[in-house]
């Protein structure tokens, strides 16, 4: 009945020197993630010129890198690392989907006569 002692299950210690990179990279995940979303939205609505768009995608690349860095420094495990990659691919499409949604609702409502609720 005695469970075999499996050293690999031991929760890996975070190296002292890794704390700062972890904190910074995890903050940057959100910062770059927001940069991507904001640049994408603003270019689409015309607040930014179209040439800014590549910087938005650069934001996405940096988000993915920071998430990868954070995951590996925290020793999250192989499967989790893969799940994080899938998450990032999902995040690539998210602003597209949100923009599509927000744009549709504006389009539909701009053609309506605004009389019911203002």
């Amino acid at each position, binding site marked *: 009945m005695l*469970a075999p*002692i*499996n*050293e690999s*299950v*031991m*929760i890996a210690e975070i190296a*002292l020197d890794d704390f700062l990179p972890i904190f910074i990279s995890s903050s940057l995940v959100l910062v770059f993630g927001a940069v991507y979303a904001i640049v994408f939205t603003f270019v689409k609505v015309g607040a930014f010129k179209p040439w800014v768009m590549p910087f938005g995608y650069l934001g996405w690349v940096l988000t993915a890198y920071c998430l990868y860095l954070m995951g590996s420094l925290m020793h999250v495990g192989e499967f989790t690392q893969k799940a994080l990659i899938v998450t990032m691919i999902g995040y690539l499409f998210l602003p597209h*989907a949100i923009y*599509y*949604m*927000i744009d*549709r*609702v504006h*389009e*539909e409502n701009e*053609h*309506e006569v605004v009389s019911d609720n203002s």
Partner: protein
Amino acid sequence: MAKRSVWSDNRFWQRSAAWVTGFASILLIWLTFDTSAQISMGTDADLQNGVTKRVPAPTVINYKITYEMDTVRGHEVPVIGEKEMFFGRDDWSEEEAAELLHLGKLGSQSKNCMNCHTLLGNGAYYAPDLTKAWLDPAWGPEGSLQSMTGKSSKEEAMAEFLQHPSQYPTHARMMPDLGITAEEAQGLVAFLKHMSSIDTNGFPRNFGKIKGAVHGK
């Protein structure tokens, strides 16, 4: 007018919001039942039969508690060992121990411990974490805090300090005199000993394992 999309439909999102909120709430309630069963206090019989509970019975004060690495779970866990004297006795009955813990928990709240210290990591950060204070080497036989009070056991040293904190300044940031009586101090120490036996999934990590900070790593 453009063809209407479900994604920009108010009703779709309203129903989705209702579903997500309702279902997440149900899951939380279910999880709460499951967790409540696991964190309810054990009994004295559990302790005698070696049944591991996340929160053991108050009579855990009759036993020696250590904090050891569990290689299966991958982190440190409290281990309840052989009998140990607590204020000169190791035969605190279930009622006596429960009463003592009750007094200690009431004391921890009425003296407002949590607004300077952290308990299980929650509270204020003005004074040390008390989660495993009972196991702190500073209160042990060779510890500076025990020798400072001139007492010969951990529990007596802690109780003495709690009653007269101003007499034993350990740092420029001192604990104020909170009018803790001898009886209340005994209860508080029992509360601390009980808290150290709670299975906190390995928090705090490395407790008391490494001596000396920056220069001694």
